[in-house]
């Protein structure tokens, strides 16, 4: 193979292990010159790990990385940049307090004959360059004052300025207005013509089909599919992302969920009406009956976690009401929501769920301390009792109640978190990806537990990127898209086929 035919960037059989998680498992990926290559998958599928391997942020545990056909090792992001790989991160990685022009030129400022930064020339050139990206605002103002979309454009301009041969774009359109999206596509077109290879991460199917040539789909750290995007229709794409490969189903059987729950009927235990939050949620309404599991479906970024947060009082709402057992929450905040009987398991249990440095005991008791104390002094006996109850009920495996939560396995951490929720005696459970990142055994236990809780009469809202889990665990599924309700599956419609159909058609 001659050098010109060699792919710009290629990884073969790359693996990357993190404590407790296999983030990438024997993944191969090829990017050719002038190709716009979509990289898709749900949260935790391994996209960001793969990007970080390609851009030198992580070093892979196994497998090869090849640049223009030659094996390379990137010891850091600077190595990758030197090789012509530029990255535009989802969260703008520029310095908001510095001026637009200084951001654009940081580290390669034009200098005058005294070796000093030529500010006038820098500003002039910055204005010229950015005009090509549809940005005409004053380049001397701090970057942070621009709209997020414009900041994204500056990041793009900066990435492209350095003779980039590969540009990685991580959800570039998530903060752009429609007009800015068009500008971005224009830029991508120009890069494409120049023979630059583009790795494009997005969840907006219409964008993928509009601008991408090839697609690679990851799921649970493994490569699911790679090929030309025109050979794959939307439904196939979605089912690759969310669906379980048949081999896995044969191996592990189905999920541990039982059948339908006999919803007690009557008054809904949770009723959300017209929840609105700027840029995040638009008019979300749904109800949960006692003993019912309602799934929230949709692709990443559809507003599932935001909905959960809004119901739990952790996301400020512009309007809308949350009603528990017929009583409307007057001031939506986590304390009030908890008092009303809403318990939430956040998506990121390490960042928002558990106090990892504290013990199992302290974590379980945290939310119910007032109930376990007299005049502000906690009763160790009462705590012991409740902690023992939950450790045995949820079968938390630990050396004892005083073990640090940070030292537990993912599954046991999740159980500790669930124990804390249940200790509050909730009426409604909001579970955001309850089985993410935990081993198969613990997964089955958690799923069985959800069934059991619903059978006891709790209302459960379940978010999961695992289509089977969502379908089998839920009595009804509300499908979201772009922060709004796109459809609802009831009764016989609650199947993976229907779910994927709704997602695929809703997204067009």
């Amino acid at each position: 193979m001659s050098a010109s035919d060699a792919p710009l960037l290629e990884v073969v059989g790359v693996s990357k292990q993190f404590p407790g998680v296999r983030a990438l498992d024997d993944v191969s990926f090829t990017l050719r010159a002038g190709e716009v290559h979509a990289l898709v998958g749900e949260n935790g599928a391994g996209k960001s790990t793969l990007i970080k391997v390609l851009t030198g942020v992580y070093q892979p545990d196994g497998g090869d990385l090849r640049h223009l056909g030659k094996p390379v090792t990137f010891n850091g992001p600077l190595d990758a940049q030197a090789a012509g790989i530029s990255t535009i991160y989802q969260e703008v990685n520029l310095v908001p307090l510095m001026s637009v022009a200084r951001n654009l030129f940081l580290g390669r400022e034009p200098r005058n004959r005294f070796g000093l930064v030529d500010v006038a020339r820098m500003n002039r050139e910055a204005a010229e360059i950015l005009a090509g990206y549809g940005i005409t605002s004053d380049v001397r103002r701090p970057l942070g004052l621009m709209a997020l979309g414009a900041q994204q454009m500056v990041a793009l301009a900066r990435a492209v300025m350095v003779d980039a041969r590969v540009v990685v774009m991580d959800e570039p359109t998530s903060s752009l207005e429609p007009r800015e999206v068009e500008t971005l596509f224009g830029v991508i077109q120009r890069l494409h013509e120049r023979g630059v290879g583009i790795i494009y991460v997005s969840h907006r199917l219409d964008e993928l089909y509009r601008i991408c040539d090839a697609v690679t789909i990851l799921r649970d750290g493994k490569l699911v599919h790679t090929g030309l995007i025109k050979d794959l229709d939307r439904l196939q794409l979605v089912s690759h992302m969310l669906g379980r490969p048949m081999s896995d189903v044969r191996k592990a059987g189905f999920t541990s969920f039982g059948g339908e729950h006999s919803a007690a009927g009557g008054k809904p235990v949770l009723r959300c009406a017209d929840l609105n939050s700027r840029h995040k949620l638009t008019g979300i309404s749904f109800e949960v009956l006692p003993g019912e599991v309602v799934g929230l479906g949709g692709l990443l970024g559809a507003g599932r976690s935001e909905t959960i947060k809004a119901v739990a009082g952790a996301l400020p709402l512009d309007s809308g009401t949350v009603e528990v057992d017929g009583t409307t929450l007057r001031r939506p905040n986590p304390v009030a929501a908890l008092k009303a009987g809403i318990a939430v398991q956040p998506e990121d249990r390490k960042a928002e769920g558990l106090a990892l440095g504290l013990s199992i005991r302290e974590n379980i008791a945290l939310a119910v301390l007032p109930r376990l104390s007299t005049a502000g002094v906690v009763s160790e006996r009462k705590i012991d009792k409740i902690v023992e109850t939950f450790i045995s009920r949820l079968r938390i495996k630990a050396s004892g109640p005083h073990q640090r939560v940070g030292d537990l396995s993912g599954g046991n951490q999740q159980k500790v978190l669930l124990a804390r929720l249940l200790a509050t005696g909730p009426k409604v459970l909001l579970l955001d990806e309850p089985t993410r990142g935990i081993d198969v055994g613990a997964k089955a236990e958690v799923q069985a537990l959800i069934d059991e809780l619903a059978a006891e009469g709790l209302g459960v809202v379940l978010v999961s990127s695992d289509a089977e889990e969502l379908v089998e665990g839920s009595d009804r599924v509300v499908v979201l898209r772009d922060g709004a309700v796109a459809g609802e599956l009831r009764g016989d419609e609650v199947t993976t086929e229907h779910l994927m159909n709704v997602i695929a058609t809703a997204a067009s």
Partner: protein
Amino acid sequence: MTAPSLAKSRGFDAATVRRLLPVYGVYVALAVLVLFNIAWTDNFLAWNNLRIQLVQVTPVVIVALGMALVIGTEGIDLSVGSVMALGAALIPLYLGYGMIPAIALAVVGGVFVGLVNGGLVAFVGLQPIVATLAMLVAGRGIALVVSNGKYKDIRDKDFLAIGTDAFLGVPYTVWIAAVLAVVVGFVVRRTVFGRRLLAVGDNRAAAQLAGVPVKRVLITVYVIAAVLAAIAGVIQVSRIGSADASRIGLLIELSAITAVVVGGTPLTGGKVRVLGTVAGAFLMQLLTATMIANNLKDSTAQMVQAVIILVAVYTARERRTR
């Protein structure tokens, strides 16, 4: 086959040492220092000497208790020295009406500063170091304004008795510090507030979602720290018999932070070691005393202290990547 496993076991040992050193290092060092002094320093065990050491370490212990709570929430309070000065400066104002109103006023002064610090941290969202820095600058100024910049002698006998008299041979001030240490220890271990404080320090977002009133906890912590500092100021005045707002509590924030950190409380929050903090204060006190008793100069003592602080912080640094 053996080489990696050997390396592995050694790595494990190193990790264990790294884990245990910040926690128990202070007790070992204190024991070594005491033994050294018993062997080499004349009259070390004489009650008079021990008494002096105890009395001298008292203000640092009291201030450090509050500092430990603040650090437990992943904060810091640089204003404690100024609050000590403020507490001291407020004493002479109402001493004419008796001892109780005078001390009450000093405590109210502490509450006021604590509310300002806590409010800036909890509601405005300032970094603790920034919020308390303003109070560090302004607090001593207020103290000087209150005392009119004058050094005031105290003549109230009841009040001076706090600093001079003893119960069972142990000075009152030491008793006060001991009681406060026990109370703070109890608060951390056995109260709702203590548990919440640790949760806020370990993971504020999680605590918030678990229904912990984060803002109230933060404000309370800063108020407690400031009140303890004011009490330390009061004690200092009763001991030296004068209120000198320009000197009382100068650089005590440094000694207090040192005591807390040396005592095994990480600056990253989520843990408070009360006994360790007291031991840390004793260690630093004894270290200085030992060096002076053995004819090392104050200057050397300060440089040694500087090195110890850095070593303590370095060994205690954990979970930096969060």
